[in-house]
């Protein structure tokens, strides 16, 4: 079946922000950056306090009962019809694409499909719903980008990151070879098949380093943990951050926090 064509909603006054568990624990700065970018666009950000995790780790591990229990606890967090924005292609993909499957044949199927239909990857939302215009305040910089596989293939936002970076006058985006290849994270794959995963991430780091850039940005914290962690452990000259952090830092005139 062909993927449904994306129909962007008009720019809303409010959104739900779904922070994801990795951002919550490890990269809250990226979450704050995303929230501040949205607020700067004049959008009120609602952060449902009861959010935990989308359920993906259990889902992709085959433990669908457990994934469903967690996902079900999240379905009630978005009662109004505002868009749900997610600073991750992976968690966004889980909610948008897999929630309908996960709740098929359950009493929650309609609600799950309804929630799924409102989920947007945050950079996509900024570019194509908010029509954000970025004013670069930073020094000249060269940066590489790794788009996560789920952002690329499940959420279809491969062109979004480069388009946003392209708005930054002092930033040169360089592309690594095999840019579309997976970094080897894959959730529990990285620990179930550590050798294969490390073979993948080592090549990803090599190609990033070979661009000449010394920093990279990415749409997903899983990839970030993986690539950054490998580069650090192996003392490779490559440091990463979430694209939202990068965008916020480059364009923040000092009026926001973080």
């Amino acid at each position, binding site marked *: 079946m062909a993927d449904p064509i994306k129909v962007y909603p008009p720019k809303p006054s409010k959104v739900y922000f779904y922070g994801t568990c990795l951002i919550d624990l490890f990269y809250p700065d990226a979450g704050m950056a995303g929230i501040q970018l949205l607020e700067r666009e004049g959008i009120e950000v609602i952060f449902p*306090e009861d*959010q*935990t995790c989308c359920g993906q780790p259990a889902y992709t591990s085959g433990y669908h009962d457990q994934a469903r229990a967690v996902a079900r606890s999240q379905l009630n967090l978005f009662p109004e019809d505002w868009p749900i924005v997610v600073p991750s292609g992976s968690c966004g993909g889980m909610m948008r694409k897999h929630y309908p499957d996960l709740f098929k044949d359950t009493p929650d199927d309609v609600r799950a499909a309804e929630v799924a239909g409102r989920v947007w990857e945050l950079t996509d939302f900024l570019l194509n719903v908010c029509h954000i215009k970025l004013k670069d305040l930073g020094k000249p910089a060269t940066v590489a980008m790794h788009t996560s596989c789920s952002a690329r293939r499940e959420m279809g936002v491969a062109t979004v990151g480069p388009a946003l970076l392209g708005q930054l006058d002092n930033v040169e985006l360089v592309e690594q070879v095999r840019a579309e290849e997976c970094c080897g994270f894959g959730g529990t794959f990285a620990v179930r098949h550590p050798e294969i995963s490390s073979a993948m991430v080592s090549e990803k780091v090599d190609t990033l380093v070979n661009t000449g850039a010394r920093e990279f940005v990415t749409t997903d914290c899983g990839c970030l943990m993986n690539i950054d962690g490998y580069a650090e452990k192996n003392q490779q000259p490559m440091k990463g951050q979430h694209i939202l952090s990068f965008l916020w830092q480059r364009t923040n005139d000092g009026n926001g926090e973080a």
Partner: protein
Amino acid sequence: MSDHAHASAHHIDVKEFHPRAQAAIHNPKIRQNFRKAMDGLMTKRKSAFEGWDLETLRDLGSNIRMRALANLPDLLEQLEAKLTENGIKVHWAVDADEACKIVRDICVARDAKSVIKGKSMVSEEMELNHYLQEHGIDALESDLGEYIVQLAEETPSHIIMPAIHKNTDEISQLLHDKTGTDLSHDVEYLTASARLQLREKFRNADVGVSGVNFAVAETGTLCLVENEGNGRMTTTVPPCHIAVTGIEKVVPNLEDVTGLLALLTRSATGQHITTYFNMISGPRKPDELDGPEEVHVVLVDNGRSSIFQDDELLDTLKCIRCGACMNHCPVYTRVGGHTYGTTYPGPIGKILMPHLIGLDEGRHLPSASSLCGACGEVCPVKIPIPDLLVRLRQESVDGDKLHPAKVRGHGAKRNSLEAMVWKGWSFMHAKPGLYRMGTGMAAKFHKLQPGNLGAWTKYRTAPKLAPKTLHQRMKERNT
């Protein structure tokens, strides 16, 4: 049906995936051979589809295959009737053993001692060469890649390019050792020497065995896609031709092959079309001067009718065996085809083999994927490979009470420790208060975070817990 246990020719324990993967990853030659080959194949595919409305073409491919599967039993009967009318003998095999036995019986009835083979993955599935050898019939592969693999006493490492794991040096050495060909880096010379050796074999073979790419029900036509001409030789020179095919290869109309062919060759090797597209609709007629006097078709089930039972898994049967999924698979590229230990390697192998060998035997296959989705993105018939991998992961741990597992050998990967971990995880994440307390504590004691996280930190530093969670920061902000 099967009257003996079918001994594997290669004694590969599929379950030993991890050690094989580790060995392959640390073998620079394997890594280099595959990387180079896959990079080339990906580039060629991309350029072959330039100017095409690829999504619409893939929709057509998917629809053609699904239309065929929707009428599979009727089409098989129509195919059988039409083939029979054309003078082709049709046989049915429930499993690999029976298929082997049918081929042997045909050979025995003709007093055939030597078989020449065109490329056929179904015959690999059957381990036909091994079987025939055990029964005193010589079986020789004629596709150059298969010939090389057979000389090396190996199995194909790729479904389209069987010897892709070897470089020219290795092949030259092999041909030298096994056939006396002079050592050479000249691929043309090596190829010419194989031509010479194999021409003799074609001339003298009693039976030719081939696979089938598409079997057309309306005309009773067997279609074979190839570049070398060995397929044409195999199906034309020996007096008897036996085609072995999976039951899913049938399509209703001749027209269907135009759509599938356009996708197959471009997806597989980036060719607009292969050198030969060979359409066989009957044995030699009385007034014809060449061609086999007998043509047989063996319709092989071997697990396919089980896959056919399930609405989701059914998609597996749409496969046209182009190999694009493995060409684009970052895991396959790192570990090579032999690591899987299965007839079909790579993504398609991971979703197909569990049905053929059982999910107990193939328990590691569905997990050996980062679910990057590259396979599903390039599949010419839109098989949702990543979704099927997740489905099989679920089946391998019996992870869904709402949708009980069905695949033979399901649940074999479930272990109580992991199940407990996920239950604990679920318990905590389904209770937001508990989650906030737990994550809050983790943040508070972030400095005490252990540096050793097992497999993760063997290759990477541990991710660093933030001093405050996003939840905490948002809460502070709102008060």
